């Protein structure tokens, strides 16, 4: 068996609630199985080790996941890609790639979140629902429809990453970890540094998003392409997109409407209202051009979008045509 685990691995074990001796053993087993020289008796010994203790199984699961990820790679592609290039190849590579121009910001902002799959997230919420969670540091998190976040609470930092087109309300004021490291909230196109704050954040896709601060403060840096940084105080909201950002006063009621299951419209165009409503239901919801500019106001329950459509038909000169439950057209009467 190997020497004691190096420091970073002990920390890894602590972070993931693994027993470090078991983790060490699991790595030894994995290295044995990779040798291509293991005997049937080794497998039997491994099986006994695995079944001897729940901590063994947990440690093995972690190591097997890593091995499984390696196994998803095409061997030829991985071998060629990871080969140390000669210095000639390296210079050529640098020259050729000057043209590729892949922003490294996403890699950074998404670092550890990496490329998103909502299914992989730590917390998620189905379409049409709102869900409340209590995070391990005591912060409260509310997810809006079809949203997902991944949470990484390390030793000296806390990071929450939003999946694309997700919306959350986060209140870190109740965090019990007063001495915990800084908390950052990563959106696909911006990064927030949060200090004991209550805020809402939404990714709008295509490098755009909104953040509203209800209490406390936060600092925001946006990604593309004209970077900007801004400090937000309570009562302010920012909308950002690739062209820049604008800070405006925040309406508390409007910002929190969705957390109460309400869609709050204040003189919205019907087309915009339907866009927003369609976030909360499956399928396609659209209107004809001739009714697109009708004005909608009011508070609508998000739980029942069919009812919302019915009330639109009562309030406006429109009719709702259900082609199927998933294909709904709003047209002039």
């Amino acid at each position, binding site marked *: 068996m190997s020497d004691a685990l190096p420091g970073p691995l002990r920390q890894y074990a602590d972070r993931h609630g693994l027993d470090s001796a078991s983790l060490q053993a699991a790595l030894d087993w994995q290295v044995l199985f990779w040798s291509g020289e293991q005997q049937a008796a080794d497998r039997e010994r491994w099986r006994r080790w695995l079944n001897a203790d729940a901590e063994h199984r947990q440690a093995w699961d972690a190591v097997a996941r890593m091995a*499984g990820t390696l196994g998803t790679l095409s061997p030829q592609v991985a071998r060629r890609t990871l080969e140390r290039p000669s210095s000639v190849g390296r210079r050529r590579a640098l020259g050729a790639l000057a043209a590729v121009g892949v922003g490294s910001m996403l890699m950074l902002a998404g670092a550890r979140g990496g490329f998103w799959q909502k299914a992989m997230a730590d917390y998620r919420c189905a379409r049409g629902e709102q869900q409340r969670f209590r995070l391990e540091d005591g912060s409260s998190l509310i997810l809006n429809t079809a949203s997902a976040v991944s949470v990484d609470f390390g030793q000296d930092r806390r990071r929450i990453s939003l999946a694309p087109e997700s919306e959350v309300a986060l209140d870190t004021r109740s965090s019990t970890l007063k001495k915990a490291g800084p908390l950052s909230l990563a959106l696909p196109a911006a990064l927030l540094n949060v200090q004991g704050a209550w805020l809402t954040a939404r990714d709008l896709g295509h490098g755009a998003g909104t953040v509203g601060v209800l209490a406390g403060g936060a600092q925001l*840096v946006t990604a593309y392409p004209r970077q900007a940084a801004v400090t937000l105080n309570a009562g302010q909201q920012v909308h950002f997109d690739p062209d820049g950002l604008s800070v405006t006063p925040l309406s508390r009621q409007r910002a929190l409407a969705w957390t109460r299951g309400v869609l709050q419209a204040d003189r919205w165009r019907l087309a915009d209202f339907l866009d927003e409503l369609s976030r909360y239901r499956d399928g396609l919801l659209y209107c004809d051009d001739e009714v697109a500019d009708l004005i909608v106001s009011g508070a609508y329950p998000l739980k029942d979008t069919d009812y919302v459509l019915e009330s639109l038909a009562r309030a406006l000169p429109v009719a709702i045509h259900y082609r199927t439950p998933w294909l709904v057209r709003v047209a002039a009467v």
Partner: protein
Amino acid sequence: MMTNATQTDIGSLYRDHAHWLLGWLRRRLGGDGADAADLVQDTYVRLMVSGRFPAPEQSRAFLARIAKGLMVDMHRRRRLELAYREALAALPEDSAPSAEQRALTLETLARIDQALDELPSKVREAFLCSRFEGLTYSRIAERLGVSHGSVRKYMLRAAQSCLLALSEFEPV
């Protein structure tokens, strides 16, 4: 001396030095300045994430140090992207992965690359031979001219590094 993030306004750090940093990076990177602009952004993000802000008189040295590290990362990443493209080009047409799959694979490869980068080159070679060529440890020992026990040690180090590198990123 460091001050706490709450005491320093990142906005003023940005206003006072972002333009200077852009020029600094442009001189080193050349090109149309798009990379330099990205790296300015990344530098401030890194600063914010760390939550440790420089004392005013050290702001520029501090920003430059972060930016330098990011430049190295960027070059490494691009090298890897190119190598990946070349490796894909060698595959038969019909086995080309989807864009999403490519992005996931590249991210996985980047993490492994970085993990292996911190280890001696023989560890990298042993790991690649084992995991992606399917060689037994005995064959690897022959190829590298080292003992069987060394190969096993190399593989353990590689496994430990990969565990850390991939632990928070596990494609389904």
